[in-house]
């Protein structure tokens, strides 16, 4: 039963397969068919450019023919394809139809078999109702018959379908074969197409070639005939020209022959002349060569010299340049130095000014302090003096007391000049011995020297003012200084003479070398230089010069009175001998020696003087000592002894007195005791009574 049901399906299956197969085969064939068409197309495309070329060159001949040919041939090929397509579509419709019929038949078959099957099943139910075996047998037979019919039907259907399948297979094979044939045909046609096309193209080409050939032939013959004609003409002309030329050549040859002979003669003559000239010229050339050689040599020498000079010059130049640069450097250095110095100078001058100001300031202060000191000193002096005077007075009183009361002597007031005096003493006033005078003399010369030197004018003025005070005191000194001033005026005249003398006499001290150098100079200048050298050798400064002059002048007198004191002579003689008599040249040297000694001494003393001078400026304390001592010596040594003795006695006396005073209360006590005892005695007495 199941088999029966399956059958139609099985039957339909192969048909489907076959269909598929066919479809596939169709597909493959079509595929195969397609390919050639592609090729054909390609071919036609390939042909196109050729065609175009052909058309381009030979438009007239057969463009249309080729196109038609191509079109027809490709149509011929594609016709097969379209035919195959048509066939395929036809086959498909047929297939569809066949399938439809088959399906219908199958359906009908299925329906009828279903009916029969139902009939049979009904038969079975009838058979079940039947109980009699014969009937049952009959029914069974009947059923079997029905089955057999059904099976037969199915088998028939199957065989039909199988037949159909076979037919389909056959047809498929046939189709395949046909398609193969078609393919072959197509390929054949394509090949034909290619062949015909190539043939056509070849023909065309041949035709074109023919045409071209013909044309070229025609042209060639034409050109050839022309060429020949021209050649002929040319040849004729050339022949004529040749004959003409030949004639001319002959003519010229004869002329040339003549000319050759003539010219050979001329040439020989000329050559001889030339030879001579050449020899002469050669000689000249030799000479010239010789001279040029000499000149060359000279030139070479000259050049050599020049070169050397140039070298030297260059060397010098380089040196100059280097020196210039050095100079420049130095100048720069100098400028910088100058600047530096000017700066420094300015700085120093500023410094100097500042110092001067400072100095002035200090001067003022000093002045102030000096004034203050003097004032203070005076006050102090007065006070102390008053005190001392009081003390003196008291001493005197005590002395008078001692004298009067103790000794019982009449007391006499000792002479006391200082008591009248008050305020600081002026030392000259009390002590004016010869020593003092000398001292002041020295001081005078010092001051004089200072004036001449004119160093520190203010200080000088101060000292001068101080000096002036002292001058007032000492008349003598004043006159002396006045003389000195006068002498200063004389000096300039005399000094010159003295100096000249000095130069002459002390010439041996000057160095010989210097003298030899001075020889060409004038006398005055000589003296000046000599003097300078002398002074330096003596160690005398220029300031001392006038002094030296004086000394030399005076030493003249000194010769006469050598015993006199120098200082005194200094003061007195200068006053009297104002005449400018020069010293005897013979004495100059000893005088000089003397002067030098004196000078050194005076210098030393002047240094000391300068120191004391500062003291005097404050106060002359040496006078004071005497003064104060005189005050202190109011009581003399004898008196002191007296005073001591008096004191001793007095102390003894005092001791006695104190004893007495001590005893007084004792006595008083004893008196009192006595009194009391007396009283008690009296009382006792009375009481006893």
């Amino acid at each position, binding site marked *: 039963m199941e088999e029966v049901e399956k059958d139609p399906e099985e039957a339909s299956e192969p048909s489907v*397969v076959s269909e*598929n197969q066919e479809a*596939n085969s169709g*597909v*493959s064939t*079509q*595929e195969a068919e397609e390919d050639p068409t592609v090729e054909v197309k390609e071919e036609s495309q390939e042909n196109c450019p050729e065609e175009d070329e052909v058309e381009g060159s030979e438009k007239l001949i057969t463009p249309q023919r080729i196109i038609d040919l191509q*079109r027809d041939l490709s*149509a011929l090929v*594609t*016709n097969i394809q*379209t*035919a195959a*397509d*048509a066939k*395929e*579509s036809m086959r*498909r*419709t047929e297939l569809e139809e066949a399938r439809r019929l088959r399906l219908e038949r199958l359906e009908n078959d299925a329906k009828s078999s279903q009916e029969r099957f139902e009939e049979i099943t009904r038969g079975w139910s009838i058979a079940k109702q039947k109980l009699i075996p014969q009937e049952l047998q009959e029914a069974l037979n009947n059923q079997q018959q029905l089955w057999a019919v059904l099976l037969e039907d199915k088998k028939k259907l199957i065989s039909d379908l199988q037949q159909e399948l076979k037919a389909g297979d056959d047809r498929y094979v046939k189709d395949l074969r046909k398609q193969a044939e078609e393919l072959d045909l197509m390929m054949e046609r394509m090949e034909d197409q290619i062949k015909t096309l190539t043939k056509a193209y070849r023909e065309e080409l041949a035709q074109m070639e023919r045409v071209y050939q013909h044309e070229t032939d025609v042209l060639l013959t034409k050109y050839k005939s022309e060429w020949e004609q021209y050649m002929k003409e040319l040849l004729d002309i050339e022949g004529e020209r040749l004959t003409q030329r030949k004639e001319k050549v002959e003519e010229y040859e004869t002329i040339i022959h003549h000319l050759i002979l003539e010219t050979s003669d001329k040439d020989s003559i000329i050559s001889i002349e030339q030879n001579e000239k050449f020899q002469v010229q050669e000689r000249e050339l030799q000479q010239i060569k010789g001279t040029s050689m000499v000149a060359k040599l000279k030139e070479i020498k000259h050049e050599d010299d020049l070169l050397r000079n140039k070298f030297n010059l260059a060397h010098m130049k380089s040196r100059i340049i280097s020196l210039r640069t050095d100079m420049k450097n130095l100048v720069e250095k100098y400028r910088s130095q100058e600047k530096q110095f000017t700066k420094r100078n300015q700085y120093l001058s500023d410094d100097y000014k500042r110092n001067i100001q400072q100095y002035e300031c200090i001067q003022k202060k000093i002045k102030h302090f000096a004034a203050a000191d003097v004032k203070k000193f005076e006050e102090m002096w007065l006070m102390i003096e008053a005190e001392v005077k009081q003390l003196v007075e008291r001493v005197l009183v005590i002395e008078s007391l001692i004298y009067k009361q103790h000794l019982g002597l009449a007391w006499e007031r000792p002479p006391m000049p200082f008591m009248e005096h008050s305020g600081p003493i002026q030392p000259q006033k009390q002590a004016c011995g010869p020593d003092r005078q000398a001292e002041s003399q020295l001081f005078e010369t010092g001051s004089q020297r200072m004036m001449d030197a004119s160093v520190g004018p203010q200080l000088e003025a101060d000292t001068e003012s101080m000096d002036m005070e002292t001058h007032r005191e000492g008349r003598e000194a004043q006159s002396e200084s006045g003389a000195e001033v006068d002498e200063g005026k004389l000096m300039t005249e005399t000094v010159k003479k003295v100096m000249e003398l000095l130069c002459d006499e002390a010439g041996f001290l000057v160095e010989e070398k210097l003298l030899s150098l001075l020889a060409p100079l004038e006398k005055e200048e000589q003296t000046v230089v000599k003097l300078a050298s002398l002074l330096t050798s003596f160690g005398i400064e220029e300031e001392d010069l006038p002094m030296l002059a004086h000394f030399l002048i005076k030493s003249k007198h000194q010769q006469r009175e050598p015993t006199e004191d120098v200082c005194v002579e200094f003061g007195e003689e200068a006053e009297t001998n104002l005449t400018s008599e020069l010293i005897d040249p013979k004495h100059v040297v000893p005088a000089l020696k003397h002067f030098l000694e004196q000078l050194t001494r005076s210098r030393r003393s002047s240094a000391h003087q300068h120191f004391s001078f500062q003291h005097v400026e404050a106060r002359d304390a040496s006078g004071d000592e005497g003064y104060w001592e005189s005050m202190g010596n109011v009581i003399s040594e004898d008196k002191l002894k007296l005073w001591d003795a008096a004191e001793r006695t007095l102390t003894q006396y005092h001791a006695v007195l104190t004893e007495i005073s001590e005893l007084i209360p004792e006595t008083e006590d004893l008196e009192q005791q006595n009194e009391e005892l007396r009283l008690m005695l009296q009382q006792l007495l009375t009481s006893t009574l």
Partner: protein
Amino acid sequence: MPRSTYSPGSKLNPVEDYSKMRRIIAEDPNWSLIIVPSLSNLCLQSIMKNFEKKPIFEDLTPIQKHFVHERLSTSLPLRVTANLISDGVYWKRCCEQRWDLCDFSHYGHSWKRLFFERHLENIIELFIPDVTETKTVLAMVPLCRNYVKRLDISQLLPPVKEPQEEEVEYGSELTIDNEYDGPSMDHFDFNILLNKLTNLEELHLVYRVKQCGMNFEWKMFEMTNRDCESLAKALKSCKTLKLLRLHQSHIEDQQCRVLVKHLLDHPSLRELNFSHNLIGDRGARAIGKLLNRSKLEILNISDNNITGPGAKAIANALSKNSTLLSLNLRLNRLRDEGGEAIGKALLSNNVLHHLHLGANEVTTPTAIALSKVLFQNSTLRSINLSCNNLGVDGGKALEEAMSHNSSITECDIRLTEVDEKRVAFINQVVWNNQKAK
């Protein structure tokens, strides 16, 4: 080297100069300066000898490169040569050694491209799933990635092990459930390859086995659903693809829908060819949807099972489309229903250049509809209506239309039952149009 007899090899030396020559030239009489290879050549030869260990190519001068090209051994491993040696004679030698026919004009006049494309095709065509390791394919990817632009795969081998219940599957063919269980019949998985080939532009695929002989089975000539899925994903991942040709692969509606679904909005796809398959109306509907969601310019779905409704869907898409240039519907079953629909659609389309409706069982009404199109449309260049029973009236309508048209340069109306005179007239018009172009 022993001196042989005085030979003609040294032409220059006369007898008296012989002693002089001896000093210059070695005693080998055959010696000649031309025979001695130059040092640079020796160097190049040693470079070529050691090319596998130490390839030096970029530093050479063009002349030296040419020298190397001509002489380098073709048996060197590709991993050395692939990215080092530029396109040239070497690759030509490689190609000619492997294949008899090598038309490098099909490969952009590049021998290297030819070599690598065919090499990769060979690898894929001989790839047996579950037997060949995917490594062999993947190893090639970095070597040929830069050169492969087109893959024309003419066969895909099924796995060797046949499923056990072959008979059962055979009986219940095309049922989806069976496809997915058991050891499958899946072919090479393009997912591992396509997204890595960054220059791939064209892909031609056929799911079939060449030279199967007596081992023929239907299974060998169709793609499985899993194949379809993986291929669709792979196509989606390949962003540079311009042309996809998947023909004779037994594609049905379902598979077509899967493919189209993944191809929607593809950035670069220009040409699609599903010819010689089994696509029906549902597949056609999907393709119609694809038309307006991509930049397709050429669509070829010839030899399928598309009937009226499918054609209507495509026509509907066509009326709105502005990219499609060529449409081929040859050998379908459009009938008048579909033909009229397409004719109507073309009234509102002015982009399409080529239309092929051959062998579609269309008749007079379609011819009339298309003649209306020919009246007013001036973009259509070629139209093919061969193998259709257009009838006399259809021929008349077309004749009238063609007399007013000047843009058609090809019109195929063979085997259409049209009057000979009319055919001749129409052809004349077409030829005139051709000339006018």
